[in-house]
């Protein structure tokens, strides 16, 4: 009847000193989804590639072409990795504003859904970064992310978009009708006792009794 409540137990901020409670008690350590970590690592790598690339281009370093490539590659990786996948088990935490990215990434279908593709894609994208000092770090980090994605793919994980659930209201069964809006029928005037004001005793709902307010 209301919008889906976020389970606050897995929300980001707990009271600072309550933290020990939430370190463990909500720990769903059952199956580790490597893709979640691979995603964090890949996003970080994208940012590092981007930064290295900007430094290389702005400083006009030798091999700045690789730096320019790194800027583009960094942006691409960030865009691809920004939308988090839906978790197989447990609540999924969206990144803020990820909805439009989710829609874009989803549009590529199996290319983005499959983690083998992502692993090899990242491995390929990172290679040119190794040719210049400024982008070497981004290259290695993205390589590590690619390995973690490979591990995730081997374990059968895949990317699922987090989309808002459409609330389907249960259709109200036919037998449940609104409470009566009209007063009950009064007896015919001839059976009414003289002097009694039966009109004033008519039933009137003091306030609306539907729950659609």
């Amino acid at each position, binding site marked *: 009847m209301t919008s889906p409540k976020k389970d606050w137990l897995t929300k980001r901020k707990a009271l600072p000193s309550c933290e020990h409670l939430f370190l*463990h008690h909500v*720990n769903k350590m059952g199956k*580790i989804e490597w893709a*979640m970590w691979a995603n964090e690592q890949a996003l970080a790598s994208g940012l590092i590639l981007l930064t290295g690339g900007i430094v290389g281009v702005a400083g006009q370093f030798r091999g700045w072409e690789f730096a320019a490539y790194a800027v583009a590659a960094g942006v691409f990786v960030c865009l691809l990795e920004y939308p988090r996948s839906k978790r197989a088990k447990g609540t999924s935490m969206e990144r803020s504003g990820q909805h439009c990215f989710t829609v874009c990434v989803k549009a590529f279908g199996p290319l983005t859904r499959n983690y083998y593709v992502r692993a090899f894609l990242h491995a390929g994208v990172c290679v040119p970064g190794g040719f210049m*000092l400024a982008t070497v*770090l981004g290259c*290695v980090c993205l390589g590590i992310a690619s390995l973690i994605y490979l591990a995730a793919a081997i374990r059968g994980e895949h990317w699922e978009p987090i989309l808002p659930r459409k609330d389907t209201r249960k259709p109200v069964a036919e037998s449940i009708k609104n409470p009566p809006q009209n007063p009950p029928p009064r007896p015919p005037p001839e059976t009414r006792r003289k002097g009694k004001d039966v009109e004033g005793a008519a039933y009137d709902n003091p306030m609306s009794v539907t729950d659609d307010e």
Partner: protein
Amino acid sequence: MTHWIIYVKPSGFTLKKGKKRSTSSLSSNKTRLIMGNFAANEGLSIFVILVWLGINAYLFVQFYRAFLVERWFYTRVLLGQALPWARAPAACLNFNCLLILLPVCRNLLSFLRGSIQYCSRTAARQLDRNLTFHKLVAYMIAFHTAVHIIAHLFNFEFFMDAQLNRNSSYLPFVLSEIGTGDNASFLNPIRSNETNPTIVMFTTIAGLTGVVITLALILIITSSMEVIRRSYFEVFWYTHHLFVIFFIGLVFHGYGRIVRGQTLASLQTNKPDNCADRFEDWGKNASGCDVPEFAGNPPGTWQWVLASMILYVFERLVRIYRSHQKVVITKVVMHPSKTLELQMKKKGFRMEVGQYVFIQCPSVSRLEWHPFTLTSAPEEDYFSAHIRIVGDWTQALYEACGGDKTEQQEAWKLPKVAIDGPFGTASEDVFHYEVVMLVGAGIGVTPFASILKSVWYKHIQNNQEVFTKKIYFYWLCPETEAFEWFADLLQSLERQMADKNMADFLSYNIYLTRWKQTEAAHFRVHHEAENDPITGLKQKTLYGKPNWDNEFTNIASKHPGSKVGVFLCGPPQLGKSLEKQCLSHSEADVKFIFNKENF
């Protein structure tokens, strides 16, 4: 039809009777209360953060300026301002790496807390925010690492430039050629033009250790993100141990002495002011300028971090020692709501209300320690923890304790456990108020088990001396399943209080914030029963969220002229709304004091 009978509008109409007061006195009272509350809760934290930032800024500026002196003149000819931009964050990194190990020495902190608690509770509570500080320092390390690396990228580029521009009338090249013979007094660590910065980086100690420790740092940070930490604790915990590699690499990072300045002896024979322009005449008899000689600074990082590393090693040794101290499980209780209660005894164990311990079970995992709030009162002769079974480790512990077997376990079959702790500041402030409001949301109710039991024990042991006369307890819970063990506790307290004719000492309200249609029908049918159909308690379960305005008003009217302590363990939004209620209901005759950081 079922909808409108049970549906409760959350936080709807208020029944507050407005009292007319002069607005000016009210607002100045409120301002004082706000400031007082703020200062009490946040003041010390803000002070500590400001001091820390101040030291960072000071170190940055000091070390920046230290590289603007004459000794580094020729180095700056090659590198420009990129040199001090690399050295300044290096100093800040030394400082922050010293700090980062300290907040996680929980036994050391526990010892400090015990000593400080007698002087100042506020100061003691600051130590509970150790993890927050650890994270702040980590972010600062990440920031300074970024600045340091970017500056060094420029440095490498400039060093390479100097070697590639092979022109004897170009000072950077002349400087780079120094020391080619003996390989000792050189300035430019890139010794030839047939290499490139990437190769140089991987063939110098500084470069190699730099890459390794930066990678370690990045892996530590990505695996410490909230999502990973809360859901895949093992990944977080094991990856975090890369900090060992980080510190070893950090200490050896400066051993190559790659940052070189003019030696003091050389400064006598070659003053940059005079000699810089006459570089083509260096070493010639008439010039008065010798060829300058350069050397690197001895590595200094170890001086900063050694003490912290030793303290941390000591901390781990203490943990190992404590893990070998005998802990006996005296009773195992399986509660229906997938909760395992362990009652334990350990020699010399002393706890206070609201504290927590780390539990390790070697037969389940030798390396994992998990924190649990203590649910027993200090007055009991055992200590207990209620463990919810939500993951691998807890499931394995459950099976090791015989949870999946139907017959009772023999005492000797129970697994060995180890305890570290107790940690956390005691929540003894609860006992300093005459009237207390305790609010627990969901799993946040756990520390209150300890508090309620302790208050009750204090009452039956020495009746007159207990200051607390009335407790209002609010438990907000999304579902009924987690109720059982706590409901049992409340039931037993209810019985004991009735026996002692103190039935109105504790007034509790349980709010179901989420419920199913099928359950709703059941509640409707049993609405008139004496005991609550869910908990079996005499006081009924309520649905939806509490109307705090009403609650505060009621309490205020029942206890005029008193101070009411409000304690919360739950989500921060609830904390904010409670704080607002405390402020708005604190008037001349009754004061609500919100205690923010007791848990």
